[in-house]
């Protein structure tokens, strides 16, 4: 059962990865008994399955995913939401209101208007229709404060970490509320803009170094160092009596 690359080597679309006895994993396809890569990424051979961890890929909706989206249109009976995917998502008025929609009485823009950000869950999606969203669960709904950062969707699992280890650390070290959208958007909401800035900086670092080991500890250290430096600066200015 021949393989043609070493683990974690960079491959490009059309690269021949394996022959015959292997099974096709993510971002690969089989043709005439040969398995090829479909995207640029790092090849992985796990037991008898060959897959490619894509370095560049867009988000494809999945039922059950929590996503962050932006309202781009208010329609007759609901909203059209941009979830940074090939398909636009829909949120029905009846879902947001938790009861049937009454066109004469209910003013949709007052609930969500163009430009609003929402956290929602995908309840339905298949090849024949655009994803359908719900905001009926307690943690879902309109976003009213915070800053957002875009992350390549394939690196979102790294921001969460094994059993949530990374995101727990981030929340502790920065004191921010962090909401993760599977579609590659992360919302950070802290007590001060400075806390938010630390969290955003940390998330960008995670994205850049997603496949290095020991990342959780190094990011924690970086945040502590930044906080420490800031405190030193503040103390110095207090002493010299200068105001910022």
């Amino acid at each position, binding site marked *: 059962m021949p393989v043609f690359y070493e683990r974690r080597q960079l491959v490009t679309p059309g690269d021949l990865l394996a022959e015959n006895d292997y099974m096709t994993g993510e971002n690969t396809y089989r043709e005439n008994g040969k398995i090829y890569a479909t995207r640029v990424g790092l090849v992985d051979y796990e037991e008898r399955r060959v897959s490619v961890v894509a370095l560049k890929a*867009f988000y494809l909706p999945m039922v059950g995913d929590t996503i962050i989206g*932006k309202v*781009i249109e208010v329609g007759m009976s609901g909203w059209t939401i*941009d979830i*940074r*995917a*090939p398909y*636009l998502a829909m949120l029905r008025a009846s879902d947001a209101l938790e009861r049937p929609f009454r066109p004469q009485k209910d003013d949709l823009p007052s609930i969500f*208007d*163009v*430009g*609003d*950000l929402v956290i929602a869950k995908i309840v339905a999606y298949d090849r024949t229709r655009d994803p359908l969203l719900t905001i009926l669960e307690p943690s879902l709904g309109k*976003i*009213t*404060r*915070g*800053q*957002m950062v875009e992350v390549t969707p394939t690196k979102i699992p790294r921001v969460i970490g094994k059993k949530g280890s990374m995101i727990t650390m981030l929340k502790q070290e920065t004191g921010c509320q962090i909401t993760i959208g599977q579609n590659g958007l992360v919302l950070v909401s802290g007590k001060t803009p400075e806390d938010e800035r630390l969290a955003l900086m940390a998330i960008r670092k995670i994205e850049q170094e997603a496949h290095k080991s020991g990342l959780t500890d190094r990011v924690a250290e970086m945040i502590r160092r930044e906080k420490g430096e800031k405190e030193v600066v503040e103390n110095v200015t207090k002493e010299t009596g200068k105001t910022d």
Partner: protein
Amino acid sequence: MTASIMAARIKQKRIAQLIAHGKRLDERGPNDHRQIQIETGLIERAEGSARVRLGKTEVLVGIKIEVGEPFLDVPNEGVLTVNAELVPLASPTFEAGPPDENSIELARIVDRGIRESKAIDLGSLCVEPGKKVFVVFVDIYVLNHDGNLIDASALASLAALLNTKMFNYDVKEGEIKIKPGYTPLPLRNHPIAVTFAKINDKLIADPWLEEEQIMDARLTMTVDKDGKICALQKGGYGYFTTQQVFEATKIAVEKAEELRKLVVKE
């Protein structure tokens, strides 16, 4: 990938709040332009060319000089024609097709700056009065739209004109005979456009895409090498007070001098 280039509402609010306090999201000062990169002579087929990167906005300008007919009312002058294309690859919102009002306005603002400042001596481009003149085509190609296409296009057009070389020629019996060698196109003036956006009643120079989305109005001033205003264009649905216009003028003259130094090497 995103279906809409409009920034989310909470981000727009933040940008506006920061500006009310004299700050900007990318930490620039209210009168600062983004980082500028200028490259010239990239298109050898063109008589002149230049590419400007203003932050992430990217504009390529090519200059072609051809023989043509003069306008009936100015038979002794060459022709300047400026055209702008908002090429679809520059933004998810640009569609292929004939020029829309935005690309026409862009072309005309840049045109006015060059024409009114008399940067090109059109009289020197006449070969046979009433019959044959040289036509200077300035073609603006927007490659990436991240705000303030006007300043980027005007700067690239000037850089491209400064880079332009015309073939040498003789006129024999009304026919143009090309001789070996090239002569730089003589430019008598160096117009620079400076654009302001009005947000929360404050003026900021060089608005980037998300600042443009929340601005009340925009004001472009084109300043020549002697500090004279040679073209002006207000855009958008809002308005400026006379006070604001004067304020903008002072800043524009200063900024134009700074930007001019990037393009014109003495």
